[in-house]
């Protein structure tokens, strides 16, 4: 029984990391319909930003979270404004463009700071483990769980309770009609993309003390993030949350019973099969056509 609870808690932790990484993509892909292959590189930029703030400015990880969000969001804004907004309604070109941007970001980081692994310190206050239902769990993992839920809450409020969110939802439903009501679609798109990028940056900074920081770390995360969003259903924030935790429990559980190699293969297979029968994902927001 203990082991069962332990495994559930582990799954929640893996799920919260997936959610953290996928949330930004869920906004960009789910809401704007942009397949952003540079998402992993935004995650990587966030991790490097954490390293830079720590090494050169002596800022701890927690203190630098807000600046990291702003820096990576600014990056996202620039890329939306000067690359993607020029490719409106050309989805294939957008995929290629974001892929290219991703490669350029990777190489730029490699050229500027070198390709060795970088070190981001675990916040000392969170470096112990604590008891959750009688199971010792790393405090930092608990912290990540709380943060990911909080970020989800903030994003949900932003989308559903603010004017910007309302405008975005209007644009998603019909861009030309929304524009004729005086909504500046360009501006809203740029802001949304920046917000998604900023979230990805935060995710990178937050996972960096548990994992490693290298120029090509994004490649793994972008795959994870797409799996979560596709499984959860495009345009459904709640679906993203549910699918992140489903995937977390599933891969954690199979990894415990078998091993991580098998877990990865089975989870991927399950998603492929599911997409075959439910192309819209598990959860879909009903939108009037």
């Amino acid at each position, binding site marked *: 029984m203990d082991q069962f609870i332990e495994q559930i808690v582990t799954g929640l932790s893996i799920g919260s990391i997936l959610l953290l990484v996928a949330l930004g993509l869920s906004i960009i892909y789910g809401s704007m319909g942009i397949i952003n292959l540079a998402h992993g590189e935004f995650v990587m930029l966030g991790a490097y930003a954490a390293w830079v703030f720590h090494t050169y400015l002596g800022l701890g990880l927690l203190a630098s979270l807000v600046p990291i969000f702003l820096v990576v969001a600014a990056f996202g804004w620039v890329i939306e404004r000067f690359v993607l907004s020029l490719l409106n309604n050309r989805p294939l070109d957008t995929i290629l463009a974001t892929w290219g941007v991703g490669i350029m970001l990777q190489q730029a980081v*490699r050229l500027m700071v070198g390709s060795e692994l970088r070190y981001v310190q675990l916040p000392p206050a969170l470096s*112990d483990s604590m008891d959750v239902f009688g199971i*010792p769990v790393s405090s*930092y993992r608990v912290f990540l769980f709380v943060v990911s839920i909080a970020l989800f809450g903030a994003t949900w409020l932003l989308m559903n309770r603010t004017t910007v969110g309302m405008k975005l939802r209007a644009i998603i439903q019909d861009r030309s009609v929304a524009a004729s009501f005086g909504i500046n679609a360009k501006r809203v798109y740029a802001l949304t993309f920046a917000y998604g990028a900023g979230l990805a940056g935060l995710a990178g900074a937050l996972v960096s003390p548990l994992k490693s920081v290298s120029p090509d770390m994004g490649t793994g995360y972008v795959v994870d993030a797409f799996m979560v969003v596709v499984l959860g259903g495009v345009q459904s924030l709640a679906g993203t949350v549910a699918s992140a935790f489903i995937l977390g429990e599933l891969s954690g559980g199979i*990894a415990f019973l078998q*091993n991580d190699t098998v877990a990865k293969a089975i989870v991927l297979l399950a998603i492929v099969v599911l997409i075959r029968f439910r192309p819209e994902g598990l959860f879909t927001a009903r939108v009037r056509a």
Partner: protein
Amino acid sequence: MSISRRTLLRNTAALGAFAGAGLPHIWIKNADLAYAAGGEIKVGVLFSLTGTTAIIEESLNKATLLAIEEINAAGGIKGSKIVPIVEDPASDPATFSEKARKLVVGDKCVSVFGSYTSASRKAVLPVFERQNNLYWYPTLYEGRECSKNVIYTGAVPNQQQDEFVPWLVKKFGKKFYLIGSNYIYPKEENNYCKKLLEKLGGEVVAEEYVPLGHSEFSSVINKIRSTQPNVIFSTVVGDSVVALHRQYKAAGLDPEKMPMASLTTSENEVAAMGGEAAAGHFTSAPYFMVHKSPENEKFVEAYKKRWGADKVTHFVSEACYFQTYLFKQAVEKLATSDITPPNIRDAVKGQSMIAPQGKVQIEPENLHTWLWPKIAQAKSNGQFEILVEAKEWLKPVPYAAYPGQSCTEKGLVEKS
């Protein structure tokens, strides 16, 4: 101008005649066989500067270049300069093979220093065997290979484990948890480890492989908690090493009771995971940066001076460094006109030198290297403390796990 058929034919014929007479070496194979021409000896340097393993291979590139620069500054090899031709194989085995062919056939390098992963070594092997050239491989690896065209200067399983495993059993106990990345190197190392444990009456509570680049170890840590091994024997590689150590630490496990014993964690990985996550765990290797010897002090100082004070040296970059010197010694024995890859191979057999780790020697039988196994414990300052040093150097036995087979000068021999 219009070109008639007649002019075209005439011109083509003239061009053909010129090419045949004027550029004869295009047609005569191996006309330009002199490897050491014009006071230059060309060698290839084939380490990835981009892609996944660039993280570590960059330092191998640097150590090799450092040695070459030092040799050239001290007058080169009998007056000839070593000219390194650096290629970036981008962590991709197919590119490794393509670049190796370019270095050997196109640039006519007399030797190539390269590779970190076994996959990339296996990919270039056919090139060197077909062209009868020479590849210098600095990485510790899984053994079970016997090529006349590779000089192996890293440790093979017997050189990393023969001291290490009995020491771990004696100090911590007999229950081992084997964890590695999912490819050939960890599987062969674990294969050998299991053989040693069988002899020592040890027990393997789990043997598990994670995908390359894996970074989520919570389920592994749960399994470690539930099986309670005495030792976690790790052959996880690359950035996974960093993730495993950090998550082990974050989960509150105690290295004093359940240490990780690694064959792959070097100063490089420790710098990336931070000293506090590495502290208390063990690594077995022939070289550590803190090793005390005049040769090592010189090496570390030169490396830092050339590449930056925050840089570390480790057990693969040290091999890169000394193998370049062994190359020099071998070439020195040859007359300039005799400098060819097969002659260098014959000359390097039995060559020895005082490397940073101690005296090393190329075993004539299998072209592997006699090395000095050491066991060290990581400290929170990011360095190791050497606890055990072998009293004698250890012979390389690349087929240690396969008693029926051995590598000889004639090639692989099967004993029935």
